[in-house]
């Protein structure tokens, strides 16, 4: 409104904004933003025996340069990338495949499949961790018998216990649990593709595969991109499964250590090791930065090139 219109009626104070935003924002700021900031600030201090002193970036320098810390840090980071890579290469393609199959036109029982396949996603890691340890346990021998029955018996090993395979095995368990999420999201996008477009490509002579490759896939790319980001963020926050199965020491020989377990050990300590709030905060800050940089890079390089399409 221009100043010339002096006798215009005044806009009242936007009480409705306070009403709508206030409660949510208050809770969010008090119980999430503030504690997190507090943590970030803590990473600039050194806390010993209840005394804290400002040390600037020293904690971070220790973390990435000091041998004892950096080895563990880089190891966890590297493992985390492996963990993420497996999710990207296995979880999301399987999710995609399932979504594509589920969205096949006139498929009977698709709702039932959908619900059942989503089920593991609903279960807690306490259950998941326990079940898979049992299944993979050489003592119980379910997997071994199974592999034996299909003629692959000699490939069985104590996967969860071997340095070379523990992380991969855990990643697969995690994939098994969370495959429902990419599946659901991609499935929903596929359903949103108008039938007309698919019909058009059929009339144009494309077979099912060509229709998928040339038409459907480009149209669900934005969702796949979003799923990738979600996977990235979730993987770099991952903790529960490793903790439930391998404990905070993430054995054998830290081969299953992720940023999450590393943070836990650093922050809260473990067994005889004392936790260090300030070092823990430094790890948390780095985790946050890695996630942020990852997401930014993604948004900058990938998301920009992917267009969303209105149908």
């Amino acid at each position, binding site marked *: 409104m221009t100043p010339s219109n002096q006798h215009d009626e005044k806009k009242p104070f936007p009480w409705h904004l306070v009403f709508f935003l206030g409660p949510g924002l208050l809770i969010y700021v008090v119980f999430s933003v503030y504690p997190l900031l507090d943590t970030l600030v803590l990473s600039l201090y050194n806390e010993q025996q*209840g005394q804290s002193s400002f040390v600037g970036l020293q904690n971070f320098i220790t973390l990435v340069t000091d041998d004892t810390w950096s080895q563990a840090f880089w190891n966890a980071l590297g493992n985390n990338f492996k963990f993420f890579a497996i999710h990207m290469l296995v979880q999301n393609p399987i999710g995609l495949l399932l979504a594509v199959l589920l969205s096949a036109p006139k498929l009977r029982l698709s709702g039932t499949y959908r619900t059942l396949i989503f089920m593991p996603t609903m279960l807690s890691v306490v259950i998941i961790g326990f079940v898979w*340890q049992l299944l993979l346990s050489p003592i119980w021998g379910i997997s071994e018998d199974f592999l034996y029955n299909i003629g692959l018996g000699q490939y069985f090993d*104590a996967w*969860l216990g071997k340095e070379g395979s523990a992380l991969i095995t855990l990643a697969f368990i995690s994939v098994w649990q969370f495959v429902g999420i990419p599946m659901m999201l991609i499935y929903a996008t596929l359903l949103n593709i108008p039938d007309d477009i698919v019909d058009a490509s059929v009339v144009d002579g494309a077979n099912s595969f060509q229709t998928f490759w040339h038409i459907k896939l480009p149209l669900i790319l934005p969702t796949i991109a979003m799923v990738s980001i979600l996977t990235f963020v979730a993987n770099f926050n991952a903790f529960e499964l490793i903790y439930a199965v391998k404990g905070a020491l993430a*054995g*054998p020989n830290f081969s299953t250590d992720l940023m999450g377990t590393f943070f836990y050990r650093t922050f809260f300590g473990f*067994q*005889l090791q004392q936790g260090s709030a300030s070092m823990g905060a430094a790890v948390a800050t780095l985790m946050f930065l890695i996630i942020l940089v990852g997401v930014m890079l993604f948004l900058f390089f990938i998301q920009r090139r992917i267009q969303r399409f209105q149908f």
Partner: protein
Amino acid sequence: ANGLSIESWRSDDANIWSDVIIPAFNKSHPDTKVNFAPTPPTEYNSALQAKLKAGSAGDLITCRPFDTALDLYKDGHLAKLNDLEGLKQFSDVAKSAWVTDDGKDQFCMPVASVLHGFVYNKEIFEELNLSIPKTRDEFFSTLETIKTESRYIPLAMGTADQWEAATMGFQNIGPNYWKGEKGRKALLTGEEKLTDKAYVDTWKELAKWKPYLGRGFEAQKYSDSQNLFTLGRAAIYPAGSWDIQTFNNQADFEFGAFPPPVAKAGDTCYISDHTDMGIGINANSTNKEAAKVFLNWMASKEFATLYANAVPGFFPLSNHQIDIKDPVAQEFMSWRQQCESTIRNSYQILSRGTPNLENQLWNVSAQVINGTMTPEEAAKETQDGLEQWYKPQQ
């Protein structure tokens, strides 16, 4: 407030506390309501620390031995107990796990210790006509016999949980090599190094266990080991005395125990008799007086008897003479007379810095058994770790 709340990692004992111990206490102190609030062992330290920082922890704190508790005291979370009446019931050795380095201040009262050794399945031993091994050679030939002459797993242990390898393996058989307290103290003063023969030999013996472990032991967890044994599928189980209780519940065969075998018959034997559990008072407790009353009661013979029999395998540290009814527990207890006791060597002071010796021991012991690390490498890695921060070893 009139209530007392106890922080503990002994979630296994919850029933015993609520059904036996607390009612016994309430008989003489009917006005004090006591609540036993355990957290599972794996989360105990972190959860407790967080609660203490936030001021939400219980009035009584179960203390891990040595530095974990010491740090809590230094951070002002534990109250000083120097003038606690009940402390008189304990020897200095028992109290040593919970005093300051200068020996001046006591911050937890000892409760119980645990012993290590081997538990065996008597039925299998009978079936195979085996006798209890006294020396290492006998021990390995026993294992060999079981392996070749039966389908039983000779030794029930896994490395998935890492600590099993360190605690039931390294700390179990090690004292015989480093001569108990003598070796432990020498490490503290820097006279001995972890690369010395005694330690390397300990790992060498552990490495020799590998062929006798069950298939896929790398993924075998502590509970799996327990199950293998209680289901009668394994003959020998490297044990902590606390396992007795579980085995009593679950094994439907008779089992016995023997101490870690020595090099030659007649050698002095050393056993790990670890002061595992103490109890202290939360410095911020609003109910300190009642807490003290409770502690004093815990120093009594009544408590010691109750506890030792309710939780066979946890041996009271007080000076009272008590009767233990469980035969296997009795067996364990009897080693205190035959052998020299020592505590775990990584607990006092040596796990104070980064890297953490205890955590390292878990890791390397598991790796040595897995065969992914040689005993020498294990020794070097732990020694390097120590040297990084521990002055006497530098």
